[in-house]
């Protein structure tokens, strides 16, 4: 069944702030095996011009994906979340995410399409810090695969 097109353009209220911690960044960098000292050593980060340790480029997805998930799980949208796969991901960074940031995500549904029974939803997440500064934009394309015929 085709998804409700009236959801296109809908923007959801900002999420509650996520506080980025040094140890969470360290944990993430270790999980992806990345030893760049900018992620763990404040002095190394400062030498590169950063106010504190910065997060790896894909770190912010943990925050934006949760926000996008809340959007596409809206029961009124009718997406079968159990069949959802992640198709595309893109980020545009105004500055790197850094320890001490308190980040909110404002999600907008940018597009809804049905192709060969697959439902495709594009969500844009605008990430701002506590001062209202724009930090990063994340575009997430999710596809709910068509259910197999019985």
């Amino acid at each position, binding site marked *: 069944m085709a998804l409700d097109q009236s959801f296109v353009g809908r923007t959801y209220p900002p999420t509650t702030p996520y506080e980025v911690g040094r140890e*969470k960044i360290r*944990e*993430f960098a*270790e*999980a*992806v*095996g*990345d030893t*760049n000292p*900018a*992620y763990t050593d404040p002095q190394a980060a400062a*030498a*590169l*011009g*950063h106010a504190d340790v*910065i997060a*790896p*480029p*894909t770190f912010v*997805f*943990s925050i934006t*994906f*949760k926000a996008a998930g809340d959007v596409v799980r809206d029961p009124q949208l009718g997406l079968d979340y159990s069949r959802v*796969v*992640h*198709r*595309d*991901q*893109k*980020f*545009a*960074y105004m*500055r*790197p995410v850094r320890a001490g940031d308190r980040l909110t995500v404002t999600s907008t549904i940018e597009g809804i399409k049905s192709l060969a029974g697959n439902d495709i939803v594009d969500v844009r997440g605008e990430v701002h810090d506590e001062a209202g500064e724009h930090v990063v934009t994340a*575009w997430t394309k999710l596809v709910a695969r068509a259910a197999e015929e019985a």
Partner: protein
Amino acid sequence: MTAKVSYESVEVGTELPAQSFPVTRATLVQYAGASGDFNPIHWNEKFAREVGLPDVIAHGMFTMAEAIRVVTDWVGDPGAVVEYGVRFTKPVVVPNDDKGVLVEVSGKVAALLDDNQVRVDLTAVSDGQKVLGMSRAVVRLA
């Protein structure tokens, strides 16, 4: 932001040092915890097969995180990355052994842009298959 590669030193076609990243089941468990993505297709073989996958697969975002390291290791400052996008074209299938699988990533400068920025196109291959499509990063050089 202090990149260690100068804009003047690169041209279209400049190759970045390629890298291979091993992925095991343990890697995926660790990434699940760090990222908060506990989808069972990334750790539960039975569940993965039930939804039609050949085996447990890596998080697309894990592969994306590995691939950009070819850029951030090259440029030195991860904060120099201005844009980064990928399409997840094939899953990275991770066998249940201590060797796991390799994700091999290479990259080259595809375009010189304004403001000391360049576009790097990345290729990520696992088990002979391209696992990322349209994998591109824009990075600001010194």
